[in-house]
């Protein structure tokens, strides 16, 4: 396991931002996950919560119990500590996506823009294994890395007022799944019938950072069946262990 030179920054009254070299890298992702495991195991009671995306980790602490300098020292000691932390194995999630143009309303635009047929775009998008680099932006929104260069497309100049829940979209060098309907400027290529965020579950988003995502092409009829199965809580997202 490589150790990086981390930067610790005070972030307001009760949070600390830990920064790795600012780039998207699987090595950094693993290093952050190992550090987060160490933090969880250490049971530092002053730490209230945390989140990370790409190459920075935010730790929120109780400033009535501990000072910034103290928490910074504890975190830094913990990071340097001999590493015996084993990460739990990651999962590869097969997310069903219907790429029919009824859902993939921007496929035609992308086809013209990128000079590929619609079938080629779908194939490029669905044959890639994406890495989850964090969760944020919206409840259950996964920051995915790995979109092929051929599909990188600047965002729409005018965002849509409503992108539907489940939309699969491309924005810049990223692709993502909209967990709720929301305004958005990404190009929509398809829709998944499954929900990646359920607030009645204790772990509302089943996917964790470090997991992998692959989109599985389904037709409209399969889309409807999965949607009904999911709504009646008899559908489990297909996943497998991934090294």
């Amino acid at each position, binding site marked *: 396991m490589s150790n990086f030179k981390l930067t610790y920054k005070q*972030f307001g009254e009760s949070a600390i931002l830990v920064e790795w070299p600012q780039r998207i890298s699987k090595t950094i992702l693993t290093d952050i996950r190992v550090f987060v495991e160490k933090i969880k195991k250490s049971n530092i009671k002053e730490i209230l*919560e945390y*989140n990370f995306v*790409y*190459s920075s980790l935010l730790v929120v602490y109780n400033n009535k119990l501990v000072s910034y300098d103290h928490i910074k020292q504890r975190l830094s000691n913990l990071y340097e500590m001999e590493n015996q932390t084993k990460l739990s194995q990651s999962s590869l999630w097969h997310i069903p996506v219907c790429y029919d143009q009824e859902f993939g309303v921007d496929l035609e635009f992308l086809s013209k823009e990128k000079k590929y047929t619609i079938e080629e775009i779908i194939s490029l998008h669905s044959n890639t294994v994406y890495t989850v680099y964090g969760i*944020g932006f919206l409840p*259950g929104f996964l920051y995915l890395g790995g979109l092929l260069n051929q599909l990188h497309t600047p965002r729409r100049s005018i965002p849509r007022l409503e992108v539907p829940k489940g939309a699969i979209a491309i924005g810049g060098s990223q692709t993502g799944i909209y967990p709720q309907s929301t305004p958005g400027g990404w190009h929509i290529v398809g829709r998944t019938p499954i929900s990646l*965020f359920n*607030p009645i579950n204790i772990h509302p988003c089943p996917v964790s950072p470090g997991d992998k995502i692959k989109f599985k092409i389904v037709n409209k009829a399969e889309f409807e069946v999965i949607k009904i199965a999911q709504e009646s809580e008899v559908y489990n997202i297909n996943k497998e262990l991934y090294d």
Partner: protein
Amino acid sequence: MIKVLKSGLYTTIQDLGRFGYRNQGVPVSGVMDSISASFANALLDNNENDALMEITLKGPQLLFTEATNIIITGAEMSPKLNDDPIFNYRVYLVKNGDILSFGELKKGLRSYLAVQGGILSETVLGSKSFYKDITSQSSLKKNDELSFSMEFQRIENHVSSIKSDDQFYETNCLEVYKGPDFEIFSHDEQNKIISGSYTVSKDNNRMGYQIQEIFVKHSKSILTGPVLPGTVQLTPAGILIILLKDAQTSGGYPRILQLTEKSISILAQKKINDTLEFKIID
């Protein structure tokens, strides 16, 4: 029970927030002005995290069907109990059939209505704070019914001791820390931002407040990273966005400043065209 006869402009139920789920992208939510809300709960001998009503700009009309003690703090919205004007920061006994209504906004933007024992609405992911797609509703509607604890006892008013404390938001000075991306800007750019006088734009809500003035345009980009309530983002077009309680948990604009919790409470009482300035603290 409280029956909502009129909802007001934007009335929600809030507690201190939804903690422990930011790693799944869930905003913290919770009261925008935690100082006023905490006063309300404290003066009713409630728990600090008891849920209360956050009332924005134009108040609701509410019918009580059981007796309890209530208190209003924060913005002054000319509240009336039946036909009688009542005052903020004082405990009132309400009886079955009493109607609480609000009138003209005189000061601030957000009022807090607390009832003894707290409002007992649904708890989702450890919090009663309303948030779209997490709680079953995102704001109160006409005919909603809210329950509260039936066990009440008469409470003495402590009004004299706290009289000066509702003045805290009568300042336009927001105390801020340097944000994690402060140093990527030149000294000139930093000085312009810190010394600027600002005005709240029409785009202000529980997610964030935008500022009207544009002082520093830039082409600096950062890799998307975590943000907090109170984070001040500077977009390339030069727009300052102050993230608040319902804001996303991560963002891609440089985080130039960070408000203190007290400054978040002050800002929560500001409305369109109110002026602001920043004061750096270390």
